[in-house]
């Protein structure tokens, strides 16, 4: 922390103590402004360093892939089984004894760091994630590099912010900033990364952190593009909506994607806890066994399911697989990923999700091309939309899924099919699998992280929800005391409170006793003060300006001073929409 990091006491005695106290006071004055500036600058550095690390991570995966699986993995090659099996043993040993925190994809770990550990991700975890995830994916485990990249980015942010010595509040904010940078570099798509972090990690739009997230994500992508160029991880074919009737096929794709995501989630939801509940010695064997099984899928005919599978996504997008092959690849990718992930091998879910989506999308496109050749657009369009569909349905990030497809394709003409298919898939998935997959994993791990899906849909109560019509007497503050006293409204004396409208269009809420006390100051018209206005005798403070659209919780603190609160109209100054009282507010919260 800055309070302890700088200007530590050097002397002794009363004079020094006074000077130190003074210095600390001054530092605490300087610190917020300094942290604000540092925050933005560090966001850029976090983006750059995360981008470089993610590029290095991807290169490490590529190198390991060529070295371990060979330059042309093909059915019948024994190394396809041997490499992941051996890598599985190394991963199990290192995960058990050196890097115990690297299991899993990285998304939940980042969320846990944010919500449980004040944004803390150890340097060791970051290094472990880099090494073990690259070894796992490079050796052929069916996992992706995006989620680990997200955690690596968050780790970079956490490490840097700790070394710089920022406040706890800032430390916590840095984790999503780094996460966005890591994901942006991995996707080569900054908007999708930013949206995902907001949608899935933070759960809310916060202006305070949004600027830094954008800065870091853009910095990371600029760095990544220095190496990879501006194109995404796969070549995007020409995408178009050939005929409006094609939307029916996209709707079918939504249904197929929803069903596939359900199958995928059920398989993971079943196998992961079963394997995690096995004895320790058995858990040490699981990555190797999963490696053999996944390798066997490659050995016996489908080496495309090994690793992240970007090359295969690219081929499917360019219509290079027949219908049956596409369906087989989708099915076996689900099997391979379920085995790989459930065994505790570190690696992500994004790439397999995109893989399955692309295969199903291309399959629907191919089927349509066979049945209705004159109505079909490019298969690439279907594959691209399919990726978004699985992203929406399986990862439950519908907003990100739409923007991901738009950002990756760079073509807004596809927005209608994307929204249609994604919505259908998302609704099917939500109806049949109410708990999102990442939340399911946290429950299986015994954690209770906030559910972003629920958080997104929580509706905050507003003032208008507790609003009541004005049923208390209203007095004019400009009237003289004598006038007020002489024209008594019988309700004024009966009501426990009255509203007084002041001349500057503000309102005052006076209790019956307070009003009686003011009016008792005069007894006759010619007494001094009888012709003074009522508002001159009120306290200088006024009831707070409250509007119907404000959060109801904002009003709570004012009830300590005011028995009721007038709710004003935003368009017409001084005009009341109604009032709220403590009883009404509590009643509304209890409903």
């Amino acid at each position: 922390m800055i309070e302890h990091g700088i200007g530590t006491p050097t002397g002794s005695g009363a004079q020094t103590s006074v000077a130190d106290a003074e210095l600390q006071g001054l530092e605490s004055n300087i610190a917020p402004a300094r942290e604000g500036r540092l925050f933005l600058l560090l966001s850029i550095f976090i983006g750059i360093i995360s981008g470089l690390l993610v590029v290095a991570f991807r290169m490490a995966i590529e190198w390991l892939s060529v070295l371990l699986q060979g330059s042309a993995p093909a059915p019948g090659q024994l190394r396809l089984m041997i490499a992941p099996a051996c890598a599985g043993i190394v991963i199990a040993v290192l995960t058990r004894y050196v890097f115990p925190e690297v299991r899993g994809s990285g998304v939940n770990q980042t969320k846990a760091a944010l919500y449980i550990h004040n944004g803390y991700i150890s340097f060791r975890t970051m290094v472990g994630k880099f090494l073990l995830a690259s070894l796992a994916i490079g050796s052929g485990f069916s996992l992706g590099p995006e989620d680990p990249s997200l955690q690596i980015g968050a780790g970079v942010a956490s490490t840097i912010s700790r070394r710089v010595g920022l406040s706890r509040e800032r430390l916590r904010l840095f984790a999503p900033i780094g996460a966005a940078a890591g994901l942006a570099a991995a996707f080569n798509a900054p908007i999708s990364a930013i949206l995902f972090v907001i949608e899935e990690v933070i759960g809310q739009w916060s202006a305070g952190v949004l600027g830094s997230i954008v800065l870091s994500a853009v910095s990371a992508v600029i760095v990544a593009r220095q190496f990879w160029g501006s194109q995404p991880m796969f070549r995007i074919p020409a995408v178009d909506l050939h005929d409006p009737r094609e939307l029916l096929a996209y709707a079918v794709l939504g249904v197929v994607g929803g069903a596939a995501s359900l199958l995928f989630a059920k398989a993971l939801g079943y196998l992961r806890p079963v394997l995690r509940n096995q004895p320790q010695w058995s858990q040490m064997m699981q990555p190797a066994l999963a490696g053999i099984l996944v390798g066997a899928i490659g050995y016996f005919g489908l080496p495309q399911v090994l690793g992240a599978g970007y090359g295969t996504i690219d081929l499917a997008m360019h219509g290079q697989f027949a219908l049956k092959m596409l369906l087989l690849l989708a099915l076996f990718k689900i099997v391979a990923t379920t085995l790989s992930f459930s065994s505790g091998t570190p690696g992500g879910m994004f790439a397999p999700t995109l893989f399955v989506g692309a295969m199903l999308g291309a399959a629907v496109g191919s089927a349509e091309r066979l049945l209705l050749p004159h109505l079909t657009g490019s298969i690439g369009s279907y594959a691209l939309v399919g990726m978004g569909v699985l992203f929406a349905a399986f990862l439950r990030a519908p907003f990100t899924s739409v923007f991901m497809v738009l950002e990756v394709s760079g073509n807004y003409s596809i927005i209608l099919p994307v929204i249609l298919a994604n919505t259908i898939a998302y609704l099917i998935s939500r109806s049949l699998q109410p708990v999102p997959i990442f939340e399911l994993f946290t429950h299986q791990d015994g954690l209770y992280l906030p559910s972003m899906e629920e958080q997104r849909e929580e509706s905050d109560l507003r003032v208008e929800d507790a609003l009541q019509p004005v049923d208390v007497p209203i007095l004019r503050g400009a009237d003289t005391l004598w006038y007020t006293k002489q024209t008594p409204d019988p309700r004024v004396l009966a009501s426990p409170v009255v509203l007084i409208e002041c001349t500057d269009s503000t309102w005052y809420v006076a209790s019956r006793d307070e009003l009686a006390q003011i009016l008792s100051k005069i007894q006759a018209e010619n007494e001094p003060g009888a012709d003074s206005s009522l508002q001159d005798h009120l306290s200088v403070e006024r009831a707070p300006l409250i509007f119907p659209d404000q959060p109801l919780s904002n009003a709570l603190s004012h009830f300590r001073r005011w028995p009721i609160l007038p709710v004003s109209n935003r368009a017409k100054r001084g005009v009341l929409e109604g009032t709220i009282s403590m009883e009404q507010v509590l009643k509304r919260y209890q409903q």
Partner: protein
Amino acid sequence: MSTKAKPRSSILSQSARKLFLRDTLVFATLTCITLVLYGFTLLLFRSFESHRASLAVYWSDRGQDEMSHGQPNQAATSLRNAISYAPDDRRYELLLAQALSEAGQTDQAINYFLNLWESQPGDGFINLELGRLSSKKGLTQQAINYYRAAIFGDWQGDGPTRRRNVRLELADYLTSIHNLAAARTELLIASGNAENDAMINLSLGGKFAAIGDIPNALNSYKKVLVDKPHDLSALEAAGRLSLQSGDYAAAHGFFVEALEAGIEDANLRGRVLAANEEAERLEDLAFSPNMPDYKRAEHLMMGKAIAEARYNSCTMQLGETAQPPVDMLDLKPRWRAAENIRTRALKEDDGLQESLSSLIRDTEVVASKVCGPPSGDDAILLRLAESREPNQ
């Protein structure tokens, strides 16, 4: 007051200086880390990129080698590997699509070419391959559309020749699906656009002949013979087409020229000799109305003698007891009426010529049905009868 203000400002500036130094150090350190990391990443990236490039070249060379050795399946696998290391190399993509096509993986080849087509819909080669694959799949209209797009598409290198070859291929395809009128149109366009080359005309002649367009076929062969008067293929083909069209004299001329040019192949020589004899005899017996009257009358008298003998032998073959077919019975009074026809009268009477030629034809046709296939001159007369003398 002033003595108290001085330490405060001094403390403040000291603190600010410390913070500034500290932050400068932090950013200097971060910059150094970034530079070191950049160097490391660049090294890793460059090394892998160069490795990828060499792997792409290795696999594409291997794929082409396998293609040239007639192993399209292996070639497809190798070329897929090449593309995975150089995904933007169009050359590899085309090679892979060709390999898939040759390997009989029609669906995948179509998908591959369609994908290439989406980015280059005007490419002649891609359209041609799609036309070929669609024709294999039986997608007739699609195949024709792709062939036509190939004809009007972009070609690298010798565009006119490639377009003509595609048009000829389209004509072959149209012929194979019995759309002869469309095939003829394509051949006529190809013929009109083609330069006067013997090989091209020879090919066009064959294709015209295949769709039954004998005049254009003969025309093409004649163009060949202008350039190469002793071209045996053209001479033989022209002879046979002339024979087919009833121009026996021309056929005889082409065969004679072929024989005079010297045919080394004994089988071919035998075939040409037989065809030549047939042409000669057809020429001798032909009784086309276009002939001069005196010659036609002589030929009809020769034909009458042959046909009458055939009628008599056939009648004997059927025997007295057998019930002769109605067609044969119909011929009897006609032959009785023809007994007194003489050459002089025949020369002067066109109606008599027609009547006799009709009797000869009917006799040979009926006799071949009732008494079996004829031989010798009867066979020649039957051929004349069946051809209905197109020159008439």
